[in-house]
C-alpha cells in the first residue's frame, strides 16, 4: 500500500501548507482588518517593483526580516530548551491541522479517496492532545529564557491554557455525545442531514450554547486578545520576551496556527465541516473541490470573527481570565453536557 502512504504524506504536506499560508495571510488580515475598522489604512508600503497590492507583500517582508535578524540567546538561558520551545509550540499546532477533515471521501478513477489527511477514529482526542502539548512550548519558552518576565508569561500561559483545555474538552464532550463519535469525519457526516427538511443539522443549531462556549474557550486557547495575558505586551512582554529572529517568528506563526486549528474545529464541529448546505451528494473531482472550498470558506469566516473579536475587546485581567474559565464557562459547559445527555436520552439522538 505504498500509494496510500504517499497519498497520505501528500495530504499532510498540503494541510501544513494550508496552515502556513493562511497564517501568513492572517498577518496581513490582522493589520488590514484592524486598520479598516479603526478608520486607518494599514501597512501598504512594502512593494515589489513599485507594485504594492494593498500591502500583501508585508508578510513576505516580515519573514525576510525575521530570517535575517540576529538570533540572540540570553546568557543565562538554557540553550537547548530555548531553541526547542518555538519548535514545540509550532510543531504541535501544525500537527493538529493534519487531523482536520478538509473534505469527505470522493470516488475518482474507480476508488475512494479520503480528503482527510490523518484518518483516525479518535481524531477529536488527537487534536485536543496536540493542543495541550503545544502549551509546553509556551511554558518552556518562559522557563528557559532566564528572564523573570518570560517566566511570568509562561506561568500565566500555563494556567490559562490548562484551564481552558478543561472548558474546551467539556464543551466538546457534549458535541461528541450528540454525534455519538470522536471521529471528526463522522461528526461532519452526521451534520449532513437536515432538521425539519430545511435547516442543516449543524452543531451551531443543535448546540448553540456549546458553540458560544467553544468560541470563547477557543479564543482563550489561542492566547490572543482579549485573552492575551501570557503576552500582555503592555504589562509583561510575555513568554517570548527573550526571543528574536525566526524563533520569535515561529511563536507568532504558532499563534496564528492555533487560531486556524480552533477555527477548523469550530467549522468541523459546529458549522458542518465540508458540508455544503442543501447539497446532499458530493462526489467526483468537482464534489471534492466543492468540499475543500466549503471548509476553507467556513474556516476563514470563523477566523474573520475571531480577528474582529481580537481587535474589539480589551484584555482581561489575569484573575478575570481564570474566573471566566473556572466559574462561568466550565459550569455552563457541564450544564450543556448534562442537557445534551438528557436530550439524547429522551429523543434518541436523531
Amino acid at each position, binding site marked *: 500500500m505504498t500509494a496510500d502512504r504517499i497519498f497520505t504524506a501528500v495530504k499532510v504536506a498540503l494541510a501544513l501548507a494550508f496552515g502556513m499560508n493562511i497564517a501568513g495571510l492572517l498577518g496581513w488580515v490582522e493589520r488590514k482588518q484592524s486598520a*479598516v475598522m479603526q478608520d486607518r*489604512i494599514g501597512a501598504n508600503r512594502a512593494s515589489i517593483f513599485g507594485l504594492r497590492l494593498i500591502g500583501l507583500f508585508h508578510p513576505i517582508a516580515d519573514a525576510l526580516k525575521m530570517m535575517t535578524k540576529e538570533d540572540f540567546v540570553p546568557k543565562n538561558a538554557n540553550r537547548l530548551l530555548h531553541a526547542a520551545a518555538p519548535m514545540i509550540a509550532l510543531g504541535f499546532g501544525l500537527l493538529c491541522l493534519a487531523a482536520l477533515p478538509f473534505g469527505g471521501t470522493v470516488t475518482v478513477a474507480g476508488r475512494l479517496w479520503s480528503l482527510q489527511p490523518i484518518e483516525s477514529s479518535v481524531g477529536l482526542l488527537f487534536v485536543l492532545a496536540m493542543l495541550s502539548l503545544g502549551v509546553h512550548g509556551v511554558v518552556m519558552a518562559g522557563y528557559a529564557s532566564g528572564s523573570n518576565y518570560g517566566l511570568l508569561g509562561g506561568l500565566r500561559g500555563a494556567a490559562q491554557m490548562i484551564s481552558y483545555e478543561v472548558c474546551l474538552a467539556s464543551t466538546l464532550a457534549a458535541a461528541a455525545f450528540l454525534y455519538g463519535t470522536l471521529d471528526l469525519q463522522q461528526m461532519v457526516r452526521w451534520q449532513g442531514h437536515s432538521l425539519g427538511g430545511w435547516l442543516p443539522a449543524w452543531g451551531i443549531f443543535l448546540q448553540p450554547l456549546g458553540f458560544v462556549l467553544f468560541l470563547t474557550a477557543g479564543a482563550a486557547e489561542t492566547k490572543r486578545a482579549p485573552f492575551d495575558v501570557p503576552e500582555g505586551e503592555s504589562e509583561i512582554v510575555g513568554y517570548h520576551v527573550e526571543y528574536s529572529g525566526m524563533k520569535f517568528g515561529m511563536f507568532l506563526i504558532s499563534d496564528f496556527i492555533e487560531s486556524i486549528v480552533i477555527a477548523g474545529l469550530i467549522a468541523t464541529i459546529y458549522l458542518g465541516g465540508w458540508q455544503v448546505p442543501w447539497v446532499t451528494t458530493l462526489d467526483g473531482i468537482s464534489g471534492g473541490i466543492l468540499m475543500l472550498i466549503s471548509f476553507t470558506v467556513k474556516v476563514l469566516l470563523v477566523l474573520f470573527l475571531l480577528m474582529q473579536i481580537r481587535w474589539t*475587546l480589551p484584555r482581561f485581567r489575569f484573575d478575570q481570565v481564570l474566573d471566566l474559565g473556572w466559574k462561568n464557562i466550565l459550569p455552563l459547559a457541564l450544564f450543556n453536557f448534562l442537557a445534551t445527555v438528557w436530550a439524547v436520552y429522551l429523543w434518541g439522538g436523531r
Partner: protein
Amino acid sequence: MATRIATVQRPKRDLEVQIYLWEVWKGLGVTFRHLFVNMGRHVLRSLGLGRVPGAVTIQYPEDPAMLGRRARTRHRLLKRADGSPRCTACLLCETICPAKCIRITAEDSPDVMVEKRAKTFDIDIGMCVFCGYCVEACPVDAIHMDSNEVEICSYTRKDMIWNIQELLGDKKKTPSAHPAPTHAASAPPKP
C-alpha cells in the same frame, strides 16, 4: 464659599451587563459597522464612484501635510508696497527670541522717514523653537510665520541659517551638496 457636590451615578451593572455577551455583541456591532462602512467606501473609491474616503489617514510624503490656518511655519520677511523690506532693524525680535536664533545688523536707510534698515537678517532655523514671539514683537509687521513650509532640512548646520534675501523670497534657498560620508570623525566635510 459654597461647595458644590455633584453626585456621579455608577453605571448600573445589571444582569444584562454582567453576562457580558450582549455587551460584547454591541461592541462587535460598532467595529463591524466601521469595518463594512469603510470597506464600502474603499471599494467605491477604487472604482471611481465614491468621494468619501474610507480612512482618515493622510499618506504624508505623497499627500501634502495638512497644516492648520494658524500653524506657525517657516518665517518670511514682508516688503512694503515699493518693494523694500518692512524691517526697520529695531532688534525687538532678536531681543525677545528665547532661542536666540535671530541675528540682525542694522544700517542707515536711504529713506529718512524709516531711519534704519536691516543690513543682514539671519535666522538659524535649526535653533528656532517656532514660538512666534518675533511675529508678536514686531512693531512694523515685517515678519510672519505663514510660509506653510515645515520641511526644512539640510546636511550641515550652516545650511539651516536663512539670510535676508532668502527670507524675503528674493533668492531661493539652495542647500549645499550632500557631503561625502566620512566615517572618520576627525575629517570634516570639504567645503
